[in-house]
């Protein structure tokens, strides 16, 4: 387990005004008609979010959803909170400015695989490395939906789409590995259809002070239907989903007959029957070195063979926005804001 350095621990929502008002899910529904396609995974995530937010106990007016462009980025319009539907890829930058200026807000970024990982890749990694106190929910459907079906940076190689009739050629991103490479302090993955699991991850993400990166596998019924069926099928999912439960050995399979063990370099999958049970990795998302969580993220490939679900990493690091405000506060303590003195400077002369 990681060593507690005795650093002050503050929650992700510290500074956000609380309320005794008992909100219900419907209090977070806006009056706008939801315009996603029938059967879209986004509906499930929206409903989960609306059901989840009352549990935070913070004032509704202090919650902001910022999004980019894409199907999922319409999300803010359907939330009865403050919302900013911005431009393609730039939501993390806008949310960073907002979070820096306003410590009293709970800021969510809603983005997709194209928005966050193609056009907005730069802003995503920099928000994560800075550890801005924003919650980034990446709806990954492995396709471009709003532009009607081109392959995305998470599409599997060889994917036949409108723009790749002979199959896509580029190697996809593993979003979890990418976030960990940027040293994100909170990294998790959830499934759109798993309301309980998603709620659990959202709860931990909002309590985390710093950037929380949550990849949500989300089905696009029109352009990439069934992309995650293998993780939803009863038999298949048991063999593929690797549940990450802090403090517990990482085992999976219909009978928990598989386990994650240390390999020569990174982690391997082994049959529990073939190994010493003590060699099974016990999950600890608080390990400081991102290499641990990164190794977990490499268990499965683009074929969704072994797919860890849950919280990969959850560590404390000073947030950029807290540090920025601390510098301003420190400067204000040390120095008077005397505008006239500033304008005068040190070398003046007078003309009578």
């Amino acid at each position: 387990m990681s060593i507690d350095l005795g650093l002050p621990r503050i929650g992700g929502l510290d500074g956000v005004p609380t309320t005794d008002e008992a909100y219900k899910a419907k209090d977070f529904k806006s009056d706008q008609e939801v315009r996603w396609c029938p059967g879209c995974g986004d509906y499930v995530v929206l409903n989960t979010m609306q059901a989840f937010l009352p549990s935070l106990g913070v004032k509704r007016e202090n919650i902001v959803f910022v999004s980019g462009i894409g199907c999922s980025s319409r999300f803010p319009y359907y939330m009865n909170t403050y919302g900013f539907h911005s431009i393609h890829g730039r939501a993390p930058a806008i949310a960073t400015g907002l979070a820096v200026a306003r410590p009293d807000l709970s800021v969510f970024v809603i983005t997709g695989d194209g928005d966050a990982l193609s056009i907005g890749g730069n802003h995503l990694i920099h928000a994560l490395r800075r550890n801005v106190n924003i919650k980034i929910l990446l709806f990954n459907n492995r396709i471009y939906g709003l532009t009607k079906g081109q392959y995305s940076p998470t599409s599997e190689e060889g994917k036949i789409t409108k723009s790749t009739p002979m199959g896509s050629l580029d190697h996809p991103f593993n979003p979890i590995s990418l976030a960990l490479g940027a040293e994100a302090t909170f990294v998790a993955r959830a499934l759109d259809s798993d309301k309980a699991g998603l709620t659990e991850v959202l709860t931990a993400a909002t309590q985390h002070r710093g950037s929380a990166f949550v990849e949500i596998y989300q089905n696009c019924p029109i352009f990439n239907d069934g992309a995650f069926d293998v993780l939803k099928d009863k038999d298949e999912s048991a063999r593929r989903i690797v549940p990450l439960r802090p403090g517990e050995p990482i085992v999976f399979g219909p009978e928990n007959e598989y386990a994650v063990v240390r390999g020569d370099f990174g982690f391997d999958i082994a049959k529990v029957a073939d190994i010493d049970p003590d060699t099974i990795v016990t999950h600890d998302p608080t390990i400081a070195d991102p290499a641990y969580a990164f190794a977990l993220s490499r268990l499965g490939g683009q074929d969704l063979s072994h797919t860890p679900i849950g919280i990969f990493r959850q560590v404390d690091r000073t947030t950029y926005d807290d540090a920025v405000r601390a510098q301003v506060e420190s400067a204000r303590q040390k120095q008077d804001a005397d505008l006239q003195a500033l304008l005068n400077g040190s070398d003046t002369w007078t003309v009578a």
Partner: protein
Amino acid sequence: MSTSENTPGQAAGERTTTVEKLDRVVIRFAGDSGDGMQLTGDRFTSETAAFGNDLATLPNFPAEIRAPQGTMAGVSSFQVHFADYDILTPGDRPDVLVVMNPAALKANIDDLPPGGTIIANTDEFTKRNLAKVGYTDNPLDDGSLDQYQVHKVAMSTLTRGAVEHLGIGKKDAERTKNMFALGLLSWMYHRPTEGTENFLRTKFARKPDIAEANILAFRAGWNYGETTEAFSVTYDVAPAKLPPGTYRQITGNLALAYGIIAAGQRSGLPVVLGSYPITPASDILHELSKHKAFNVITMQAEDEIAGIGAALGASYGGALGVTSTSGPGVALKSETIGLAVMTELPLVVIDVQRGGPSTGLPTKTEQADLLQALYGRNGESPVPVVAPCSPGDCFDMALEAARIALTYRTPVILLSDGALANGSEPWRIPNVDELPDLTVTFASEPNAMDGSNEFWPYVRDTETLAREWAIPGTPGLEHRIGGLEKADNKGNISYDPDNHDRMVRLRQAKIDGIKVPDVEVDDPTGDARVLALGWGSSYGPIGAACRRVRRSGMRIAQAHLRYLNPLPANLGSVLERYDVVIVPEMNLGQLAGVLRARYLVDIRSHTKVAGLPFKAAELAEVFTDVINDTEPPAADGSDVHALTEAVE
């Protein structure tokens, strides 16, 4: 324009130096990029400001930090013009050229008029250095400079001699030769020296040896002038009679940064600057980052787009969002500027223009971003544009940009340029209490027009057409905004054709209706038939050219635009009053095109895109030609207009 008088010699006591009175002087310091010419020029400028002359400066340096030593590409120069009256430009051509090496001589000699003074560091005129720039003979000795007054000074040797007892290395010792040059020129022009010595002590506080070496070199330069017989004349330029007030020296970038801080203080809002380093705008980021005590947050973003994104996000949260950049950065930011247009949030976008297109000339000046500022976005995307006309004016226009942004809830583009950014002038320091009040009121109540308890984000103020600024955290006003077209008043997404047409026109009407001051015309005789109209940093050269033309007995009116969108309400009637309107621009006629389209006036466009400001002399000739065209001379040519005096 000079008078001489003999004064008894001072320290030496044995010789007589002549003091010549001058009303103005232009000095150019030129050397290698590593020779510290910018610092030398800056210090001479500060001494000159402290003495009370009016002044204007023109730094000119390569984009490379250290181009190969001794080459033409590596020449860096700093020109300062100072006078006993109010001047408008850094001067067309130097009277005195200080050259630290052969490359500096070669790069600048063509600008020196016959009879001009050259002060050369002979130590660097070695065979190797001469060969580097293609001199086969030493121009200091071969008679090729006979038409100038040449002073040959072994600056490196003399400097080494002055500081060697400190025991610092030869390299460190020689690096202080720029202070020797400064000392010599300070002696020649009777500049106060205390400021420079204090400056050096502060600058090198952590390296007392280096501070001492620089001070000794500076004094050695002064004493060289004082004690040797090489220089028999010194010059006196009396303080200028500027309007009463307290003054300081200021560059455009510093004034801009101060204007932004003042806007934050006068609005009571935190300032959030999102910026990415870019020449020649970075100094604004550097300066603002020093002033956190004024509730100024600066964020060096990962790119230009993130810089403006963070600024806009902060504005959405109720701060004064600002982003600073140059032309290439504006190109990257244009989509976000469009988002600010659509979401109608306040935002100040500072474009310190440089030579373009593409990377262009990073360290040189140009005015070619006007059309980018006005039109460089997709869709009908009107944005107010303002442009300061002098370094000091950058302060006022930064406040104006903030006022417009906050009052009308719109992004505003401020167009400065490289000449304003790095150029300096005396600045009459404003009284803080007299600065405009920029207080804003955030929305706090539902405003639905149907009497319901809802908040409609796009309900407009009937006078300004601005929508309310409802910031997150305000109970009951939860709403959603974004880049999709909004329904009038309610602000929900709307694809309705009539609504889009109405919203496009409303956004345009809001910007068109922004109140800006009328343009003032300077027409001393009141009957000029030609109007010289400019914008931005060309105010100085145009004004100086107008003075020359008038002193030669011709009539010309001058007007200058500090508001480019919307244009002043009286501009149309001003243009109609003149037979000819001549518009000089450092681009290919961008403002001229705008004016022709808008007012159906046949503008005469004069353009230059050389990366350097206009010279007063060239504009005076252009204006003279236009006047001759407009007021044709008699058949016998008896009343041809001609420039008679080459003064400002």
